[in-house]
Structures are given as structure tokens and as C-alpha cells.
């Protein structure tokens, strides 16, 4: 089962929920925790384990100007505006290219070849016997976060023996988040009970609803009332399955880079109960 932890707004507690859920589950079975927030991965801060590294490469076209006839077919084909063919030269805007390979396929002069460039890294580590952590990192200056996320998800699938993958999504509802929630089984939406929090979680909820992904809400920094999120939960028919209270002690544990569930058996049990409930909702086996 693949569970994505998402939120519209940044800083609501996605990482807290991901780390604690994975930690608690790993006490009883094998789990893969995948950090898909590749522009600012942070789950590794909670664990201390040796990492193995793999590059993320994407194909890019290369142009042989000896062969190019400046016909412009490639530029008129490119949906992303990555190619412009002038009267005497060609301009390739690498950041705009989505690596579709179309220009290479259709070039009548056979002037386009393919080269690979590195845009990021995938780090894999084994913080405990049952827990595998996969972290995606997008190189600074690169913009193709979804390609790194795709590789994080592929790496997660290759880990054998684990039936559960928890994906920590980037904030927002842009390409990176949509890539993370693509073909998953369940989505945990982490919300904070403020008007901003409500507005942003609603956007995230709409993304997963559109894709028929069952979802639940976890409220972080709950004041015990959480009116705005309760109204939304009812409106959108997404149950609130857990509330993490706004407490200094929790903030301190988190702030020290430690895991709440490792400190408190109560939270261990709560996160396991959350998972059991999710499993029922998703209707699948673990």
C-alpha cells in the first residue's frame, strides 16, 4: 500500500506525520519511507544511517549543426517552447525541455541525438532493520522536480519485502505534489486549523478527490476545537482520523530532531491506530 502524506500549505506537519507513522509501523513490519519533497528534503534529519547514492539523469537532445537544415520542424513540434530555429542558427532552452524526445524522432535531417544530464540524486539508507529511507534531492538550479520524484518512487518500488510505502509529499498542489500522489492508494492530508490552513488543505483535497484517491485528515497543532477543518471535513466528506495537540513538549522533541513516537508509547499506538483505520478505508490489505 502506498500512502502519500500531503498538505496544501507548507509547515503543517507532513514530515512529522510521515516520520512518526513510518517509525511506528517499522516496529512491527517492513516500511519504506520516501521523501518526495526533493526541493527541500528533511526526513533524513530524524535518522542517522549510512546512505548510498545514485544520480538522477534525464535525456536531453543534442543538435548537430553540420546536419541541421534549419527547417524548423522541431521548433513547431515542441509543445514547451524549448526550441527556436532562426534563419542561421538554433536556440535550445534546456530548462523548458521535458525530455520527450520528439525533436529527435521527427528531425528529417537526423541532426538530433540524445545525451543524458544529471539533475539530482537519490539517497537510500536503512535506519533500522525494518525501515528503509529514500531521499530525493533536486540539484540547485534545476527545475525538474517531478523527474526526481519519479525516480524516488521507482527506487521505493525496488525495495523488496515491504508492503507499505509512505511518501512525504512536497507542499502545495503543483506538479511535484501531483507527481507524488500519482498512482497511490491513500492520502493523508495534514491540516492546521486556521483559515489559511483550511484554504490550502481544500486545494490538496480537491487534487486527490479528482483522482479518486481515498483520503483522511490529520490535524496538527490542534487546539481541540478545530472548527474550520471540521466544517471542511464534513463538506468534503473526508474524515478527521487524528489530532496532534499544540503542546510545548511535542515541539521540543521535534525541535531536537527526535521522533515523537520513539519517546511516547501513546503516540506510537495512535499512529498505528491511524494506519489500521486507513487500511480499512482503503479497503486493501497491508
Amino acid at each position, binding site marked *: 500500500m502506498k500512502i502519500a502524506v500531503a498538505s496544501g500549505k507548507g509547515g503543517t506537519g507532513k514530515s512529522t506525520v510521515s516520520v512518526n507513522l513510518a517509525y511506528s509501523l517499522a516496529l512491527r513490519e517492513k516500511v519504506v519511507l520516501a521523501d518526495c519533497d526533493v526541493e527541500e528534503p528533511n526526513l533524513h534529519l530524524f535518522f542517522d544511517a549510512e546512505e548510498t547514492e545514485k544520480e538522477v539523469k534525464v535525456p536531453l537532445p543534442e543538435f548537430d549543426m553540420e546536419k541541421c537544415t534549419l527547417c*524548423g520542424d522541431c*521548433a*513547431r513540434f*515542441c*509543445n*514547451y*517552447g*524549448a*526550441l*527556436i*530555429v*532562426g*534563419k542561421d*542558427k538554433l*536556440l535550445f*532552452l534546456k530548462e*523548458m525541455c521535458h525530455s520527450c524526445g520528439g525533436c529527435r524522432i521527427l528531425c528529417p535531417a537526423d541532426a538530433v541525438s540524445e545525451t543524458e544530464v544529471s539533475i539530482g540524486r537519490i539517497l537510500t539508507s536503512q535506519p533500522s532493520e525494518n525501515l528503509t529511507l529514500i531521499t530525493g534531492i533536486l540539484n540547485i538550479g534545476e527545475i525538474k522536480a517531478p523527474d526526481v520524484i519519479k525516480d524516488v518512487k521507482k527506487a521505493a518500488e525496488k525495495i523488496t519485502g515491504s508492503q507499505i510505502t509512505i511518501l512525504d509529499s512536497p507542499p502545495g498542489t503543483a506538479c511535484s505534489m501531483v507527481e507524488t500522489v500519482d498512482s497511490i492508494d491513500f492520502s493523508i492530508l495534514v491540516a492546521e486549523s486556521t483559515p489559511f490552513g483550511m484554504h490550502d488543505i481544500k486545494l490538496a483535497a480537491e487534487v486527490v478527490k479528482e483522482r479518486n484517491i481515498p483520503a483522511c485528515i490529520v490535524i496538527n497543532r490542534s487546539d481541540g476545537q478545530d472548527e474550520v477543518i471540521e466544517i471542511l471535513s464534513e463538506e468534503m466528506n473526508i474524515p478527521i482520523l487524528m489530532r496532534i495537540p499544540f503542546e510545548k513538549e511535542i515541539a521540543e522533541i521535534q525541535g531536537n530532531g527526535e521522533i515523537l513516537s520513539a519517546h511516547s508509547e501513546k503516540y506510537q499506538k495512535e499512529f498505528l491506530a491511524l494506519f489500521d483505520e486507513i487500511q480499512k478505508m482503503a479497503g486493501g490489505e497491508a
Partner: protein
Amino acid sequence: MKVAVTSKGENKDSVFEGRFGRTPYFLIFDTESDECKAVKNPYSQEASGVGPRAAQLLVDNSVNKVITGNVGGNAASALQMAGIEVVLDRNGGSAEEVYNKNKA
């Protein structure tokens, strides 16, 4: 010489459009005859990459100079590579007025 003017409509008296990549039309004037033809910009509603693609449209129409309100980074690189001169007009008016003011 051919001069393109970004325009909200397809006639000379249409309102000048300030955006380059998202302009609904390019009015392409011939400076010798002052004749004008409208070319619809098929990318005006597209999600992304509109600037460079609009630039390619001007290349394909053998345009030498474009008059518009503003040009984005990628479009500017594309126009420069293609040797198309860019004139920015921030005052507006009708497409024809803007053309007459800046054609020289």
C-alpha cells in the same frame, strides 16, 4: 521590412496588446506598402512556453521587428537569436497608432 505589433484584435484599429507571448494576434505590417495582415497567436491560452513559440511564429512569418509592451526572458533570448528587433511601447493606443509611432 516586416513589423509585427501585438494586438487584442485582428484589425488595425484594435487595441494594442501589452503582452508578447500571450497576445491574441500579431498584426504584421509591411513597411513599404503599410499593408497589414493579422496572424492569430495559437499559443495565447497555453499553459507554458508561449514566449519562445510566439517568437518562432514571427520567424516563420519572416518578421524583422516586433513592437509590444513587454517580453519575457525566454522570448527575449529567442527573438535575439533570431535577429528580430524588439521595441517596447508602454503607452498603448490602437495597434496602428503604435505601429506608426514606432515603425521607423
